[in-house]
């Protein structure tokens, strides 16, 4: 540090204009590097989406030709995609199923996470791990039993059926996340409430929920996004009535003939609602994900 300073001072001596302090220089160059790194990572992650949006505006021939940024944009693919399938039918199903399943999951998960966080028994850890272990089974392993069950109770190709499956699918993650958020909350606050005569419901409603709202919100957002993007169950359990946007996208890929531009246009339309939703709730999301990180 000292040598650096002497060096820079001697340098300052030779150059009339004062240079910024070396500490600042080091810091700003580090910051610069971090900024560059940040943008690079963001660019790499974002590039496929950018390319998809771009491809949606190309013709099919341009889409498979050598990659190029210069082309005359056309809406042909969008027109064709819309003429072949009614986007709004699929989009409505996606919205209903993702938000419905998220609400249902939160309704079940909040009480259970509360119980596990504040009234733990010696089996709580085991229960949590067991819940998570259900996520380790490849879904195709239970496809046939679930399909048979759904067939017998008439839930195939219904939004209700898909909502139930998504709820079950997201429940372990939702419970885990809420459990971590609730655990970070000082127990004293809830105890204080109890001293003032709050019952369990009031305790949850007036203390727990407002205090952990960012965490709950980001958990909910994650569940919505996971349900929105889910493609295995939606393709297998729906056909026409309850098919969400993932099934819509799948209908534009083809083993015969060119389809990249149409597929890109369909995909862009499929991610648009959730992208806008993500932008609007970005603040909540970041706040929730870092919630409790700095105490």
């Amino acid at each position: 540090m000292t040598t650096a300073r002497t060096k820079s001072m001697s340098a300052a001596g030779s150059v009339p204009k004062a240079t910024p302090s070396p500490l600042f220089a080091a810091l700003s160059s580090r910051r610069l590097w971090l900024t560059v790194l940040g943008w690079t990572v963001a660019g790499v992650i974002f590039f496929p989406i950018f390319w998809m949006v771009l491809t949606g505006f190309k013709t099919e021939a341009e889409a498979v030709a050598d990659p190029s940024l210069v082309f005359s944009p056309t809406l042909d693919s969008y027109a064709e995609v819309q003429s072949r399938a009614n986007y709004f039918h699929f989009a409505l199903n996606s919205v209903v199923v993702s938000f419905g399943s998220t609400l249902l999951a939160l309704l079940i998960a909040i009480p259970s996470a509360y119980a596990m966080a504040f009234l733990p028994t010696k089996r709580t850890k085991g229960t949590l791990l067991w819940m998570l272990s259900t996520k380790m089974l490849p879904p195709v392993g239970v496809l046939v039993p679930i399909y048979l069950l759904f067939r017998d109770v008439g839930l195939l190709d219904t939004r209700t059926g898909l909502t139930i499956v998504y709820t079950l699918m997201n429940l372990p993650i939702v419970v885990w996340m809420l459990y971590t958020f609730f655990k970070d909350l000082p127990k004293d606050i809830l105890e204080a409430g109890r001293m003032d005569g709050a019952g369990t419901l009031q305790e949850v409603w007036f203390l727990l929920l407002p205090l952990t709202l960012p965490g709950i919100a980001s958990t909910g957002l994650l569940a919505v996004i996971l349900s929105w993007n889910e493609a295995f169950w939606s393709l297998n359990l729906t056909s026409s009535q309850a098919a969400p946007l993932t099934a819509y996208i799948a209908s534009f890929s083809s083993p015969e003939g060119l389809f990249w531009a149409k597929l890109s246009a369909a995909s862009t339309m499929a991610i648009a609602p959730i992208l806008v939703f993500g932008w609007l709730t970005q603040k909540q999301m970041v706040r929730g994900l870092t919630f409790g990180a700095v105490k």
Partner: protein
Amino acid sequence: MKLSRAIPLVGLAAAGATAAQAETITVATVNNNDMVIMQSLTDAFEQSHPDISLDWVVLEENVLRQRLTTDIATGGGQFDVMTIGTYEVPIWAERDWLAPLDDLPADYRVDDLLKSVRDGLSDDDGTLHALPFYAESSMLYYRKDLFDDAGIEMPEQPTWEQVRDWAGQLHDPDNETYGICLRGKPGWGENMAFVSTLVNTFGGRWFDMDWQPQIDSPAWQEAIGFYVDLLNDYGPPGASSNGFNENLALFSRGNCAMWVDATSAAGKLYNPDESTVADQLGFAPAPVAKTPKGSHWLWSWALAIPASSDSKDAAREFIAWATSQEYVDLVGEREGWTSVPPGTRVSTYENPNYQEAAPFADFVLNAIQGADPKDSTLEPNPYVGVQFVGIPEFQSIGTQVGQMVASALTGETSVEQALQAAQRATQRTMERAGYFD
């Protein structure tokens, strides 16, 4: 009193009539061009059949296959019409999963369907279990301009040896023109469709009469060795990831001097909007080596009615319409004659409009008629199918062997090692399935 009782009854009857009017059938299909046209003609069908309305489920081929298999095996009843291939029809029909189609309307003209295609969709008694929507075989496409410049004349029936020589002559990687493009992407319906026909014509077969796999036989070694050398010496870079679509794009951009693949590509290659080589397109029968048997494949996409459907009559009306001559004419008038579904009806090939618009028609007809799924190899075999083996186990066997062939193509393993591994894997699968102990 009597009158007031009658009124609700009339009301009920009317309600019943509207319910019958709105009988909706769910049609599951793939996203291929011909099916997209079928979907776009929904209005025409609903106008001529006001008591039936159509609901479409369009999915990518592999997704659709999995989806349909789940539904039909569990009797889910989610679909009234399924689009399936020559591979599935006999296997599913044997399990009584498909409704037999023995009472078709008289004007349907079953005898107008091409015999080899019809045979592939019927059981031993001749009862159809699916109606052919379009059919294809394989053939050789080549660039006339390059052949003329090099002074090569295409014989009536090229051989694989000739093809190799020509590929060597025309291979010009510096100008991104490659001698030959062939499928390399692993999968039973991708590289193995082509490789099986190559093995057939080199005198090989998948199984002997006792269902013992023959993949390590000299014929396989020779065929796969030939394929790997040909594609590595004169093929495009990264050939192991090229399937039908990739090669179609390469050929239509002018990057391949030759290409052996589905006859259904002809319409696309002839379309100047999609292909830069439309005016230079030449075609010939698929090349042969030791035997012409099984040198070109036979595949058809067909419409079938699952036994679990609740609306079999309406579904039968729809599939009879979509595979009828009337439908072919409708597509010809509305979309142009190159767009009509090929390979199913004799009358299509007798139609002067089609003959004029599709100069490849005779080649395709000959190729389809010349393919015999029941006699596709030099030595006798116990299975039905040219480029596949009509047993349920073949999907997994074909894809596994396809991956091993692809690894030989990339040089990861030697041809010999790949085929030995493929032989062992197939033997295990067949043993487990109970074909032998």
